[in-house]
């Protein structure tokens, strides 16, 4: 993949925009269409594109499998932690209204944290799947 000049240049141009769009979808999720699932997948697709162009080893230097495992776990922990925090503040599990002074601010903060957790996990799991499949050697060859 060293001489595909056009592919490399185009990919390098596109990847920042894909990442930016993912962040937009992530943080715009409370007001319009979007949210953690979609943002996580878009974010992962940027990294997968990078892997396709520059190879698996390079990509693993950018985000290592260990980091992905930690990200995947911490996403779920963020989600659960938000729920538990609501409980500690006197509400039910995931009752966001309890998170801040006013229920409205609480709902905003709650859904923001939840979507952050979802986005992190979805991104990490998607890339993990891709690494997992593309990293295997064909035993017959």
């Amino acid at each position, binding site marked *: 993949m060293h001489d595909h000049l056009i592919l490399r240049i185009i990919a390098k141009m596109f990847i920042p925009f894909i990442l930016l769009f993912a962040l937009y979808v992530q943080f715009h999720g409370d007001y319009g269409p979007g949210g953690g699932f979609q943002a996580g997948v878009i974010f992962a697709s940027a990294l997968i594109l990078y892997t396709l162009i520059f190879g698996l080893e390079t990509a693993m230097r950018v985000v290592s499998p260990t980091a992905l*495992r*930690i990200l*995947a*776990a*911490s*996403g*779920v*922990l963020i989600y*659960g932690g938000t*729920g*538990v925090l*609501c*409980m500690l503040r006197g*509400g*039910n*599990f*995931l*009752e*966001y*209204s309890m998170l801040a002074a006013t229920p409205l601010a609480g709902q905003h903060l709650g859904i923001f944290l939840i979507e952050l957790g979802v986005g992190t996990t979805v991104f990490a799991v998607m890339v993990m799947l891709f690494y997992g499949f593309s990293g295997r050697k064909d035993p017959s060859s």
Partner: protein
Amino acid sequence: MNAHLPVLQVILPLLGAPLCMLTRSARLNWLITIAVSWSGFVISLLLAQQVWVNGPITYNMGGWVAPWGITYHIDALNAFVLIIVTMIAALVAPYARRSIQKEIDRHRQAVFYALLLLCQAGLLGIVITGDAFNMYVFLELSSLSSYALIAMGKRRRGLTAAFQYLIMGTIGATFILIGIGLLYNLTGTLNILDLAEQLNKHHLIATGNRTLITAFAFLTVGLSLKLALFPLHLWLPNAYSYAPSVVTIFLAATATKVAVYMLLRFCFTILGHGALFQMTLGKIILLPSLCAIFIGSIVAIFQYDIKRMLAYSSIAQIGYMTLGITMATPLGLTAGILHLFNHALMKGLLFMTMGAVIYRVDSVYLSDFRGLGKRMPWTMAAFVIGGLSLMGVPLTAGFISKWYLVKSALECGWWPVAGLILIGSLLAVIYVWRVVETAYFNPDHELEQRSCEAPLSLLLPMWILVIANIYFGINSDLPLSMAARAANLLLGVGV
């Protein structure tokens, strides 16, 4: 904190799983698993006590009330099933460490605990939730982790068994999804209690609405796949015999029970109190149940892989549970629900002895049991007691549920069915006896001197189950009264 117990029941294992993913140390993960499983058991006991004293508990997720939000609803039935699942989980957790050191590759051991906790979270979620779609999501959570768990063994046939289970399980889950979708289409609600109310209010049950019938056809077939009712059981023998022992113990004692619980929920709580069920679905399930008892037991007699033999015996035992359910009388349902508990006790015990045999002998073929009665006296004694319970010998737990099953069959006037139950027990005598005979009366002189009893961490959970099998056979008041209360609740009589 008491008010939050219902949600803690599910999120403890659900958050324990990512914690296990963070570390690479199998030992640390094992400790997390033990802590989570035991606290889960304590929570389920506390919940059952609350339900027993104060009646059903409702917990609104996120503070949204019933028909709009997801609620956890705990009544006599699911409090009982929660105890079954958490009890087995709590016993399997200490057992797991030594067993998987033997049966699972070193680098996979840490992940194993994460998957086990996820599976546990899924099963507990199915039981505790009061929302039909939520049930589907938790069902898939537990199924996906069990596919991965089954494939973890060192033998390659575990892979094909897991794949087969994946195909059948996904078809079953998709059928359930269709059923839930059609119910939502009819009523516009997903809350189980609200579903029952809406169906009643619009007279959909009485008039035999066609969409409703279709929905229940899909649900019944999907659930039968999941609980391995006779013609749809093909995934079960392979999955149970090639999975690592710990996985087999856990799944055999809990997964099918939870599917039976789902069947009870849909057919009784949603579909009114049994009258309609008895006329239609009950009649349809009756024949497969009887076939399961017979064909499962007969096929079990001809198995030489003892784990596989016990898997076929599980299919037969599931037949007993569904048979009790089809009667749709208080006594029959009590017997069926009680058998959920007793079967978890005895099959958990029997598969635990298999795990111990694999740990020492590395094989569960019948010929390898020669002389084991002398070499592993405690393990084989546990097997004998588990076997007696499986046959339904008096003073063991298995006797109580068989007794009530026969009694309710007679009460319904189903004489032939009562006879068939007894013949099924005789078949169980044959297949258990084969193992006992080989272990005790077929000595292997070369190896006889070397005692190779299983380590204490395997024996201890096993013998706790032995004691439970005997205790609940002598003094069955506690599970019996809980099962009776659950049955009355489902039939809507005298609560």
